């Protein structure tokens, strides 16, 4: 499917919105009492956009902690996302959950877990459910190269393959499990080759090339919708910051990080793509950048102005769901 100019520009807006959101979260973490420890996805934004933009509202996503953009594109507002990161009453579930594991069933975001890869088996369940219900919704689950070595991922890929489930396993391979390089934790260079062992397709894509990710996902989504089963999509990417903003040091070679930031920035690359192909003029992009900055500042103001949740009201509620007579 050919993307229209309008769609290309919408995707640009998502891309820079994620970037701006992440940059501001990092900044505010450094100098204000933002509660949540940022695990920034700066450098990896094209994966969220390329994977989630082609989805429908009734499709389901199970993001990793580094899939910030997926939440926004699927329909969670910047304000709620930011208020969540600030631990405010107006954030997800009155501050009961961090923003990077939050959910919203109305737009198909499934609640997450802080256990790396612990959400992958859940995608087997959501896709089993939609299949049993006769719906053609697709589940997309995101996780990193580190998570690939958890047993959950192996069992989930195998079971999804055996049951021919409408699920897409998106590997955000940024080359490091916190500090440990992929070469130390996996003998294979490409993690998508594991798909062959489950009898399903495994695609490898430049995860910082937004259009390439979008195209690979289109094919995977179509397969899943038609009942042809799961696909593994490995997005090669790079994170520009440390694992989290609390890491005391970054063990990655400085020149490697510098090179990636200069030559493999998904925002720069996509801007160049739009400009070089005449899909956009520089002023249009700048105008969009300005509107995004405004949106993020509005979200921050909203978060700052919001009260903290009152423990007398919320601390003890909803441990159990009420049994209806």
């Amino acid at each position, binding site marked *: 499917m050919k993307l229209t100019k309008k769609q290309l520009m919408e995707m640009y807006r998502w891309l820079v919105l994620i970037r701006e959101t992440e940059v501001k979260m990092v900044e505010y973490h450094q100098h204000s009492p933002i509660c949540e420890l940022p695990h920034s996805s700066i450098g990896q934004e094209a994966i969220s956009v390329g994977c989630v933009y082609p989805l429908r509202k009734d499709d389901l996503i199970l993001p990793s902690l580094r899939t910030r953009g997926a939440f926004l594109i699927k329909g969670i507002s910047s304000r709620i996302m930011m208020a969540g990161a600030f631990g405010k009453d107006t954030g*997800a*579930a*009155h501050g*009961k*959950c961090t923003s990077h*594991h*939050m*959910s*919203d*069933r109305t737009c198909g975001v*499934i*609640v997450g*877990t*802080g*256990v790396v890869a*612990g*959400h*992958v*088996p*859940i*995608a*087997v*369940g*959501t*896709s*089993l*459910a*939609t299949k*049993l*219900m006769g719906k053609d919704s697709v589940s997309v689950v995101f996780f990193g190269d580190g998570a690939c070595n958890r*047993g*959950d991922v192996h*069992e*989930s890929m*195998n*079971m*999804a393959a*055996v049951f021919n489930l409408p699920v897409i396993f998106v590997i955000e391979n940024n080359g490091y499990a916190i500090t440990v390089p992929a070469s130390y934790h996996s003998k294979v260079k490409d993690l998508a080759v594991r798909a062959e062992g489950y009898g399903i397709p495994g695609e490898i894509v430049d995860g910082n090339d937004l259009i390439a990710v979008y195209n690979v996902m289109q094919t995977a989504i179509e397969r899943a919708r038609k009942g042809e089963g799961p696909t593994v999509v490995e997005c090669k990417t790079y994170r520009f910051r440390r694992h989290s903003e609390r890491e005391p040091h970054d063990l990655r070679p400085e020149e490697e990080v510098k090179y990636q930031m200069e030559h493999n920035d998904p925002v720069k690359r996509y801007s160049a793509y739009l400009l070089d192909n005449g899909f956009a003029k520089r002023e249009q992009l700048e105008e969009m950048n300005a509107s995004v900055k405004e949106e993020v500042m509005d979200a921050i103001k909203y978060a700052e102005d919001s009260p903290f949740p009152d423990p007398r009201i*919320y601390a003890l*509620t*909803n*441990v*159990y*769901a*009420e*049994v*209806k007579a």
Partner: protein
Amino acid sequence: MKIITLREAINQALMREMEEDDKVILLGEDIGLHGGAMQVTVNLFNKFGADRVIDTPLSEYALIGAGIGSAFMGIKPVVEIMFTDFITLIADQLINNAAKACYTTEGEQTCPLVVRTMYGAGSRSGPHHSQSLEGLFMGIPGIKMVAPSNPADAYGLLRSAIRDPNPVIYFEHKRLYGIRGPLSDNEDLIPLEKAKVIREGSDLTLITYGAMVQKSIDAAKELENYGISVEIIDLRTIKPFDKETIITSLKKTGRVILVQEACKQGGASPEIAAMISEEGIEYLDAPIGFVSAPDTPVPFSPTLEDYFIPKIEDIIETAKYLTVSKY
């Protein structure tokens, strides 16, 4: 009214719920044509087909994930974990996904999941197929735990568990599958979180569940010979347990023994004792008594395993000790 085994009661409860609600599905290893390792799901595959009685690969992470994820979507899965000893494999999914979803979504995301699992010692199956691990989940808010002691309870509690919007672990004691008992034609549901006083008495209360209920009944009959009048509470739901019934009974008897097959430390009994210490100590005329297994793994050899499992005599001796002023 009919007389059926506990195994049949569970089978019939599953069948009844599956007939009534097509969202109820079964997931597990060898539960299809084979009918399950303990033959609880026999005939259900033929009746409901492979879409609703789903044999999975030997993959507990993915199996429970399939259960939790589909429960998130409004399916009502009943997952069979062959032996309770394997519940360690699904602990992360239960604790970090199933038990937390309702709270972390402020009630938006419920998880109507049932995990059925066979527990308990006495089958000469060794340390990894005989444990009572309900204690592992006593400290996990969001989880419910149920353990029936007879066929009618097994039937009514399972039906309620399937209808409950929360994750429920349903413990089936392996020595109870063959016991027989009446099931009324009304097919009664039995509410969760409510204990039942199954025997009235005035001197002492035994609080127990699962396979220890029958031993408590036998002990109570024997204690009559010593002039000790024993009340018995069958907890039915281990978590959240029914405080009110417990305290009401203590007010009457003033003495209590907590009887469980699990090891002494870390089970349901210590938590109930903690509650009694906090909320009912003024009603007690004697220290809280405990009858439990020793704090060891479950041994294999018959002489060792028989030593491990709490006995009727243990209950009798403890009861006599606590009521020594009486006789």
